[in-house]
């Protein structure tokens, strides 16, 4: 069983149906609290799986004063790039070339490792051509793609290349086994070629004789599309096929238009369509896109006899394969590793994110592939306090284990059922204002096994995150006489606290309403839990996965006074008695889940 490190997940307001799509309302400042008090958030509810995030994953909208999560933000793609060669791909290329790198970047179909172009003549050395000065390499083709991890080589599927560059284009012309095939462009030309069309028409006209022709995916799609377009255009398309079903058929143009009219409003009904009787027929010939399914699997069985289980591809391998547009539709029949092909790298993106409510951009990376800077990056971590969890072992502190109260309690140690355990929650304030934190937790955790929870100090203030300069100065090596004034003093005070830490903690008693420890911009408080017994009575359902994890729901309400933000919606609450500077009261409330540990079974 994996060791469980304590965690804090925060619930984004987007999962709450009552606040869905509603910006925070200044005139009813207590509405969230009142609402939330009525029902306890259950971290084990199936829905919760989709709304809980670690703090790092959350963004913050400064206009709505609200947390935003990966689920509710709307994303816009800024840049497409190949994760292997790191070249940017213009979005215009995406339509024509698809969403994979068209240079020479491939992944191994067996193990997903990167493939390198190597010369077949010399001893394969994967690192050789990856180096910048590969042009100086004395050897020449033919070349193969080889995996530096599992040693797979494209020669195993009978594929080798004449040139070491533009592998993507070369591979498009090669079938597994080495025979050539037409490229997409050539197939398109061929489809337009009257001689080819005539050939197709005659051969298909003769009925069964044509069953051998395999349409590649692209050609089949083009044929089908052309066929259906003809059908829709032709008002007298009622001939053969499914005509018997008449108006009730799903393939009938009238039923299609009837369905459309339901969704678009009755008045928009296409009167012309009404006159169209009969059904559209389905494709009957290969040039209409008909492709017979190959039901004869004797060849596959024969291969399986020869190659055995080792010759078959795993589901992961099959899933990683891109659709092979140059071949016929396999309908999931590709099962052997000899049929796998090198995987061109999927492109990756850089994306900007918008607030779903006010549409303001809350995250925007710079467009260049190689830069990691952001133009806008409003992360929740710079607006709401972080919560760190640490087990607190009271007996250990008495033994002089240093300032750290964690003492003998090993991280990830199992919690004893029915035995009180204590945890230190450290709230760190990221903003430049003092915040008032109010916590709410149900006395018993929801779910089958109710553990008792007591937050010993549910209301406290955390000092502002002001003297960052003090820390920066000490950081720079200036130790003693650094930070003159308040900052340095505070720093000293803090260090002093550490030195006396062990004594202070020895004196610390678990007292209701008292904070355990405080620092520059942080406060530690104690939570007492009495883990439930996981004993199951006869007839009880067995323990579900992770049901032994002690998770406590915690409602966090944060209040602070900020500078009035001009036309801000919260202006009405602005405190007038603060002379000069307009101050306004701000608040934020959300549920979070504290994962404390596993209970001993």
């Amino acid at each position: 069983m994996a060791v469980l490190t304590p965690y804090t997940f925060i619930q984004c307001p987007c999962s709450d149906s009552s606040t869905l799509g509603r910006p925070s309302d200044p005139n009813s400042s207590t509405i969230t609290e009142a609402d939330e008090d009525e029902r306890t958030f259950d971290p084990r509810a199936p829905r919760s799986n989709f709304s809980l995030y670690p703090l790092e994953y959350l963004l913050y909208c400064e206009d709505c004063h609200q947390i935003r999560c990966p689920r509710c933000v709307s994303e816009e793609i800024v840049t497409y790039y190949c994760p292997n060669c790191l070249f940017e791909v213009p979005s215009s290329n995406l339509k024509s070339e698809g969403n994979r790198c068209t240079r020479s970047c491939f992944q191994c179909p067996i193990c997903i490792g990167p493939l390198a172009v190597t010369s077949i003549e010399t001893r394969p050395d994967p690192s050789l051509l990856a180096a910048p000065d590969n042009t100086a390499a004395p050897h020449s083709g033919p070349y193969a793609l080889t995996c530096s991890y599992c040693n797979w080589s494209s020669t195993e599927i009978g594929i080798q290349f004449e040139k070491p560059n533009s592998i993507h284009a070369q591979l498009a012309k090669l079938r597994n086994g080495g025979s050539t095939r037409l490229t997409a462009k050539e197939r398109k030309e061929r489809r337009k070629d009257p001689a080819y069309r005539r050939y197709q028409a005659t051969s298909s006209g003769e009925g069964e004789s044509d069953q051998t022709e395999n349409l590649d995916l692209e050609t089949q799609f083009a044929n089908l599309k052309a066929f259906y377009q003809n059908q829709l255009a032709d008002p007298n398309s009622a001939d053969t096929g499914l005509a018997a079903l008449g108006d009730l058929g799903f393939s009938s143009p009238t039923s299609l238009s009837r369905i459309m009219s339901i969704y678009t409003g009755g008045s928009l009904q296409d009167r012309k369509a009404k006159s169209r009787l009969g059904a559209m027929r389905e494709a009957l010939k290969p040039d209409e896109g008909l492709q017979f399914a190959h039901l004869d699997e004797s060849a596959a069985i024969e291969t399986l006899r020869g190659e055995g289980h080792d010759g078959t591809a795993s589901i992961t391998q099959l899933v990683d394969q891109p659709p092979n547009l140059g071949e016929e539709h396999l309908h999931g029949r590709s099962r052997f590793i000899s049929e796998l092909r090198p995987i061109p790298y999927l492109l990756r993106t850089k994306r900007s994110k918008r607030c779903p409510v006010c549409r303001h951009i809350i995250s925007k990376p710079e467009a260049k592939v190689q830069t990691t800077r952001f133009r806008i990056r409003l992360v929740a971590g710079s607006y709401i306090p972080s919560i760190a969890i640490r087990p607190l072992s009271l007996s250990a502190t008495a033994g002089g284990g240093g300032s750290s109260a964690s003492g003998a309690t090993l991280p990830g140690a199992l919690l004893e059922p029915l035995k009180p355990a204590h945890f230190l929650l450290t709230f760190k304030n990221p903003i430049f204002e003092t915040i008032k934190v109010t916590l709410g937790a149900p006395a018993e955790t929801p779910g089958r096994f109710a553990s008792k929870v007591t937050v010993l100090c549910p209301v406290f203030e955390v000092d502002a995150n002001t003297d960052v300069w003090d820390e920066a100065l000490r950081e720079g090596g200036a130790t003693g006489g650094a930070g003159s004034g308040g900052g340095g003093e505070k720093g000293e005070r803090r260090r002093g606290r550490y030195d006396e830490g062990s004594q202070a903690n020895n004196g610390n008693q678990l007292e209701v309403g008292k904070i355990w420890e405080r620092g520059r911009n942080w406060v530690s408080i104690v939570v007492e839990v009495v883990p439930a017994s996981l004993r199951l009575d006869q007839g009880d359902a067995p323990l579900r996965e992770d049901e032994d994890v002690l998770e406590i729901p915690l409602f966090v309400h944060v209040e602070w006074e900020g500078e009035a933000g001009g036309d801000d919606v919260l202006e009405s609450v602005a405190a007038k008695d603060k002379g000069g500077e307009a101050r306004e009261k701000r608040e934020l409330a959300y549920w979070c889940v504290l994962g404390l540990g596993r209970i001993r079974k």
Partner: protein
Amino acid sequence: MSSRRAPRGEYIETETGNKVARKATLLGTQNIMLGGKTVIQPEVLIRGDLIRTIQASTQSGAASNNTAVSIGRYCFLSRGCCLRPPGRLYKGAFTFMPLRMGDHVFVGPGSVVQAASIGSHVHIGTNVVVGEFAIIKDYVRILDGTVVPPNMVIPSFSIVAGQPARLIGEVPEGGHEAFELRGLYKTVGNNPQPAS
């Protein structure tokens, strides 16, 4: 404080703030460049002796650069990890190439790194193998036990795991600060301070 302290101090602390454990093995120290404030824990092995044996002919004018391993500021090399310059055939002869590492790179215990370059703000977990000539860009997290195949390129903001490594996620916008190693730097050395 009553912490048991080795008589001479467990670490050698240099003028630029590097903290190098006495029990670390640095071969070819003249070829190892440390940017400052880097922590090298006990049992770390850095193969500075594996220098490039063939100089690129085009750069004959420049003074021959013998750096085998260069490490930026605030890097943290955990106990038992190994940094080894990658080697390959170049014009028919075998040569090593330098291993370059940016700032705020954490290398976990027992990991072996043979990359060509590692950017800044990179976290390499426990018992990771980074294959020869891998290129790891900035803000990358490599989870415990990962094997990064030779020549693999890992772009910025990737989270990779597995054997061989595959992309399993992206570093979220709020996760950038977690790569910062200034705090960790303070917690080791001859006068360690508690983590804040």
